[in-house]
């Protein structure tokens, strides 16, 4: 991981966040990646809430720009899980961005971060509507775009483009 620190040299705040994260969560396998001046960290599903609370309270990432759902059916390597959820965090007023990535299996239940960031309410409903990933203790997990009785999850790779006949 040391060469990751050099990459962050000209980004002091991100470097400081990197140090804090590595110090407080030594055991868990946090996989950092820094490309195109965007820091991303892969986090195991169990510690997501703990890490996000830590990032929000101690590291100052006070706003959530977006929650992004991914279906890596075609590009996942061996043994990797199918879905991934990315949390695009934003630090204000220091103006820094961080992307937290969580791998979710076929019918695993992710845990909702609405208590932490109220902005995620509809974004998580959209991910459930489009990918079928359920979120534990989300205020009202319903479909947001599709009709409530719609079967299938449109943004999955195995969902045909023209829809099911």
């Amino acid at each position, binding site marked *: 991981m040391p060469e990751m620190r050099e990459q962050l040299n000209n980004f002091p705040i991100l470097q400081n966040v990197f140090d804090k994260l590595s110090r407080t969560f030594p055991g868990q396998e946090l996989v950092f990646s820094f490309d*195109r001046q*965007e820091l991303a960290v892969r986090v195991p599903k169990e510690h997501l809430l703990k890490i996000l609370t830590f990032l929000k309270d101690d590291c100052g990432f006070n706003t959530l720009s977006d929650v992004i759902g991914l279906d890596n059916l075609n590009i996942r390597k061996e043994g990797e899980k199918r879905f991934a959820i990315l949390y695009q965090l934003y630090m204000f007023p220091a103006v820094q961005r961080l992307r937290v990535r969580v791998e979710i299996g076929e019918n695993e239940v992710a845990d909702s971060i609405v208590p932490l960031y109220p902005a995620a309410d509809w974004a998580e409903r959209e991910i459930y509507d489009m990918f079928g990933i359920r979120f534990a203790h989300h205020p009202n997990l319903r479909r*947001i775009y599709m009709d409530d009785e719609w079967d299938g999850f*449109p943004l999955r790779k195995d*969902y045909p*483009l023209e829809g099911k006949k």
Partner: protein
Amino acid sequence: MAFKEIELNMGPQHPSTHGVLRLKLAVDNEVVLRVEPVVGYLHRGIEKLCEHHTYFQITPYTDRLDYFAATQNNLAYLLAVEKLAGIEVPKRGQYIRVILAELQRLASHLAWIGFNANDIGAMSVLLYGFAEREGILEIFEEYIGARLTIHSLRIGGVPHDLDAKIISMILAALDSIPARLKDIEMLLSDNRIWKHRTQGVGVIPADEALALGLTGPALRAAGVRWDIRKNIPYSSYEDFDFDVPLGTNSDVYDRYLVRLEEIRQSVRIIRQAIAKLPGGESRATVPKILKIPAGEVFHSIEAPKGELGFYIQANGSEKPERVKIKVPSFINLQSLERMCRGYLIADVVAILGSLDIVLGEIDK
């Protein structure tokens, strides 16, 4: 007498929901208890379509997101693609993009003033706003040939160069805006009825606005100094000096004032961009078949409605693996629930208007 809540359906076809949106209002004799927006009537599945089209073919789709600011959507998408593919846009191209994007912001804000005033009753301001916006649409028709969904930018820069005729048209349009704004301000800003309808309505404190993820004029009206053109400058916005208007008590009136001031700032930006327009190429040479190696990027810009971000995941082919669009109106509409509690039905209409939501953007 048992208290009985009326459940009022505002929409999906209602004169002031700016498109196809249904608001389920739980109302106790005009006082709003709960608001539940229902969206999805205009869902075209743009993200699914993006996965089956090449990077070039996606740009026209982004026009249809916020159809009042087509250029801004293109700009957000193209900046993300260029960052992913490592394409460097020449300086002149960046300046022309800034001019077109700011013109689009003017058109969007002028349309917004019309809609918001019309929702609150001042019908004539709608026509004055649209008459002014007409001058800008003429410029787009002269530059690219279309008026609303114009598809005016391309990967690597801009399709045509600005010639003297277009620049003179732009300067003429910019000259007529301040006079029109003064008329609108005389009609609205210190009008007591307008103040009664907008001051102290739909108030949301700054910290809660940040927690809810609000962005754009709605957040700046709460006094939070967050404008991506200033915080994370893109497409050479750092070369222009303009100030970010801020509100104090984050109500409908402040959002109105912030947007009025933003129009004046955009006019300033365009004038500086035209004055300092560098020479040279206006579009980088981009291979006909653009294949982008695997990778992901998230890039956002300051669209008229708020922070518009594109997350693109490339898989090495000429079609993206996944395109996620972070849309400001989606988040702004989500905060409507928090803003409308305890106000009257008439205020819900005013607050909805002040958030300037566009359903094409929300439903993607």
